[in-house]
């Protein structure tokens, strides 16, 4: 692998770190090592893949699909297990090194101690706020539940209102009403239908007559009444 080429031309701000001036500290070296391992793995995977001998007889499509799915799931599980195990090993070594470093009692270890204290202080603060957040969320959830209850209660109430109104109307209608009151109500109803009909006919007449009713204020006033539903005017 040839060394990273010199960065020709002005390195945009984004690339400062990859420039020649980047001091190759341990972290970048570690990262590069990881990169190369990953690239090596991929290259070797393709090499193996190309060596695979393909089965001569044709396998029907569905079988391939199901096997690929199983293999994918299996690979996923193996990957997770691999990652958990590497994590364990890395953390064991890391902590062991950290503990030894702290034991040496030089200014580095003091620095580690300082940062550790700071981390602890921050963690306790986080824990506290997390606890408060949990309580707050609890309250919020209760409020939400109450809101939903109220919503339903409101809905039911409105239904009740409508039903009672309808019942009231029916009662009124079916109330033991004198013959005369009934007759009055019927012909009132008939009158209403007549008027709506007349209104409509009148509208059509005006339209048919092609007269410019807006110019004559009285006609206009009438026209504007023709849509009003008849009730106790």
């Amino acid at each position, binding site marked *: 692998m040839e060394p990273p080429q010199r960065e020709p031309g002005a390195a945009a701000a984004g690339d400062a770190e990859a420039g020649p001036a980047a001091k190759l500290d341990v972290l970048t070296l570690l990262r590069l090592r990881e990169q190369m391992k990953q690239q090596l793995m991929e290259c070797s995977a393709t090499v193996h893949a190309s060596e695979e001998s393909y089965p001569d007889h044709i396998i029907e499509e569905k079988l391939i699909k199901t096997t690929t799915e199983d293999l994918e799931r299996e690979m996923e599980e193996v990957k*997770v297990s691999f990652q958990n195990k590497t994590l364990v090993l890395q953390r064991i070594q890391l*902590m062991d090194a950290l503990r030894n470093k702290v034991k040496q009692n030089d200014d580095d270890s003091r620095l580690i101690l300082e940062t550790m204290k700071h981390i602890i202080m921050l963690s306790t603060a986080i824990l506290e706020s997390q606890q408060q957040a949990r309580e707050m969320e609890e309250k919020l959830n209760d409020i*939400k539940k109450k809101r939903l209850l109220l919503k339903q209660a409101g809905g039911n109430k409105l239904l009740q209102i409508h039903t009672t109104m309808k019942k009231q109307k029916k009662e009124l209608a079916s109330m033991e009403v004198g013959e005369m009151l009934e007759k009055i109500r019927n012909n009132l109803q008939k009158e209403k239908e007549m008027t709506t009909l007349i209104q*409509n006919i009148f509208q059509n007449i005006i339209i048919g007559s092609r007269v410019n009713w807006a110019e004559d204020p009285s006609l206009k006033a009438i026209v*504007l009444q023709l849509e009003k539903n008849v009730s106790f005017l």
Partner: protein
Amino acid sequence: MQRRQSSKNSKQPLQVRHSNQTDLSAWRKGGRTDPEKSLQNRQSRNSQVNESKQDSLEQAVSYFEKVQDRVSLKKNEVLQKHLATVESIALQKGLPPEAFDVLLNVALSGKLADAVNTRLLKSLIPASVIPETSVVSSVSWLCVSKCSGSIQLLFVRWLITVFDFIDHKEQLHALYGFFFSFLQDEKMCPYVCHLLYLLTRKESVKPFRIRRLLDLQAKMGMQPHLQALLSLYKLFCPELVSITLPGKMKTYFKNSEGPWKAAINTIRRRNQENSPVSQPLFLGTAQHQSRKRKWNTQLVIPASSANTNSLAGDKEKNHVDLYSTSESFPVEQLQTFSQLLQNIHHLEFPSQMGSVLTNPLLLHYMNCIKDESIYLRLYYWMGQTLQEECSWCVVDSNQYEEEFKDFLETIYKTECFLQEGFSSCEEFLYKSLPLWDGFCCRSQILRLVTWIPLSSFSEMKSHLYDPLAQLFFTSSLYFKCSVLESLKELLQNWLNWHVIQLDSESDSQGYSLNTTLSGLVNVVAELIHFVGWISTVALRLESNATFLLYFILDFYETVCDIYLRYNLPLLIMPPAGVFYPALLSMDSVSLNQLCYIMYRYRTNLVAAKENELIKKKILQFQFSSQTYQEYNQYIIAMVGCLWTSSAFQKDIHPQGVRLDDEVLKKTRVQEFKTSFNIVYHPAMMGYALLFLQQAWPDDNTFNFSLIKGRKWNWYLQYLYAQGLKGLKLFIESSINRVSRASQSKEGNVQV
């Protein structure tokens, strides 16, 4: 060639005849404008318009007013000049309310040639508002139908586009019959339907009109605009309209915006630019003037014409005429909550459904209404507006992203108020998420996601999870965390909604037909599995970032309590890809949260076990033995790590941390066994160091192995004192203390 007579009088300037009808200042006195509005008009008119432009408009208007008929455009220069002035002023600042009456009458009276009429109609762009009287008189000219068919069509299209600008709608409603009569004209039918759709009220639905629509439909076939009108009639009077209508009609009406919409937008933008204080629209409320005329006036109920005192009159009359059909209470006059309560039984929603979103009174009403038609009309309008204004789907509305954000914010607040998601919003998300770049209006969109309603037949998988996952994997750490947070809120909203539905089991509406319990449980489970999958991948992509871990565990904090707190028979353990990085995390907060979660899982599982034994089986839906087994594996691993330092042999989870000794020896660490107990755990190292400093102040060799026996318990108490409550709960619940002295506590709860 004898000279045209007109060029002679071009010499002396046209004097403006001050007859009452055209005198523009006289106009304002006539109308029923209350002082506040006219002051506002005069003020806006003087400030904006300089003298010369204004009077040439007046000249033009008065010229049109008295022009004789049959004047041909080509020969008559004066007519051309005036027409040009009208057009230029209309395009620059829009026409003042007074000009409409004259221009409409001229255009529709058929006096002039069609070319002039079309140009006149096309320049009818309102600066602020259109007086209703001018519209009424133009409708009457329409009835006279002296002008050609195309002019009538153009007039109707104009009326639809500027419908929201007409100051009052009372008289327009009164002319419903007249508009209805224009239905039989083949070409005008679609636009007249649209106009009627805007004008229809409960009382305008009449049997003979329904019959008329049905014959039209029979004659012209299933036209979408007829369909829309019929479906609206059906909503108002279901008993009258018997035929069945197809469910959701995608686009009801043809787009009739024409040239006016663009001009109105430019004027609106210009008004906004040069007057920072957004000029409140004539409609009374000084609500923030947003760009899109469509949904800003929609968000404001048009000021009603009837003044409030007439309302008092209605009150006494009201309770007497029980016989009268429930004539609906005009919602525009709704001012106080008590009014709402009194008239709640016959309240009718305004024609512009958008205004509901910002009117708290109507929201209260909507909160308890169960009437499908209200929601249908709101969804239709909201879906339409969201579709048009989406700033990353429609490039040219991108510069109005701010307004679109406000609009989404309004919708979100309404959903929070109603504690319920809008299905039109859900559809909009499904349509626009695949095209979303994860950047535009991010916080609003993610908040809207939290209110996607829970229904067992939703195709969340293909519509929400896929686009979200594609964005999730290729986006920054912060986007990942915000997505996890909104999915957590979505889960909580679902669970809250479910809990209430469950309680109201009694009333039948609890579980409406399409949401069965098992259906809901599957949908919730699908969401939890989805989050588990994307969290595992995210941890791998972001190499176990603590910040990300916090949000993932936060999500599982809700999941672990589903059974106890939300009464949903469902318990899903976090996948191994989430559990182990959390268990081995370098950060004490994550470890503590994991312990808390495992403790909650334990209580839920125990409670489910007991219920299972006592109650009958029905609750037992998702509780497969697999969940218990997974829980036990995790507990063994956890106790093995934290307490008995035996995880590397005992962990039976396939993806666990079981490692044989040679591998562990390769790490060249002597006692690797104890490297994850509470003393040596990476997350606990800080606490151990501080404890050592306190316990052995003089000895600064930090010998960790000193912490054993009694010191171990002191250390434990020290940890509890540091606020690690989760750890405390976990240890006290999962590790039964056989004896205080012996260190190797073996204990896990075989559940």
